[in-house]
């Protein structure tokens, strides 16, 4: 493992990820943070913002569609 990392550092060969990388507790990750369930707060917040952005873009879409309709009406009336 250490050898592989070292050889990658020298740019000699690619280091491929395997199962040991998922269990390697020597590498510090946000384990505690996850264990306490706080990651779900982050996910919920980001999802809420994403949902807000989608609502906004859908409303803008609808507004554009209604403007299109209005324009078509004006042109239609003038032709009569």
């Amino acid at each position: 493992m250490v050898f592989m990392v070292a050889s990658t550092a020298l740019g000699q060969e690619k280091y491929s990820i395997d199962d040991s990388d998922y269990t390697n507790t020597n590498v510090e990750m946000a384990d505690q943070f996850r264990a306490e369930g706080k990651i779900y707060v982050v996910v919920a917040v980001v999802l809420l913002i994403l949902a807000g952005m989608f609502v906004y873009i859908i409303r803008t879409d609808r507004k554009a569609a209604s403007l299109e309709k209005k324009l078509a009406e004006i042109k239609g009336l003038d032709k009569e």
Partner: protein
Amino acid sequence: MSTKKQKFQWWKWTTIILLVYTIIGGFLFDVPRLIILNETVRVLHFHVPMWFGMIILLVYSVVYSFRYLRYQREIDDIKSAAFAKIGVWFGILGILTGMLWANYTWGSPWNGDPKQNGAAIALLIYFAYLLLRNALEDPQQKARIASVYNIFAFAMLIPLLFILPRLTDSLHPGNGGNPGFNAYDLDSKLRAVFYFAVAGWTMLGYWVAQTNIKLEVIKQKIEDNYEEILKHN
């Protein structure tokens, strides 16, 4: 233009589902525990799709530029400009997120990495495209010159991002030795989110472009029929 009541297209639902999946999977799924990267490996699902998205949106843009030059239809120029604008937005977000990530993993926001420099130059070329559009008054002249420039800009983008960084050593994956991150695309667990993230973010860009195209077409129609509209009121 259809006058039917606008339906909510399937691909918009797909975009929403893909991005929700990206957020959930990107934050919650297991990731490999790698030195230097640690949890920031998850940035993969947010930073890299900006570049994939930018390229795809700029391909759309250049295709519409070719179409404009061939058929001289105003709508093709409108589409080309809208895709270029959202593509550049993605590029700016890519640069900024990349700088944040590089500061953590490579030690400083700007490392003079060939791919970083190439991306910055490419963005400057596209800024010039947007300025050029604003500088020209005559709509037909604007459309023609912008289309030609856009084709040249795209022809520069490819070597700057995909060829030059490979000729030298780069910190970016796939461009020479990179101790921080060199094999992510070989990992199936990351791939299970990454490809969907690329699709989702790109489709969001496409969506924004479509909305802008719609608004721009309305603007053109108002300008072309100004007298009629005044009479109507």
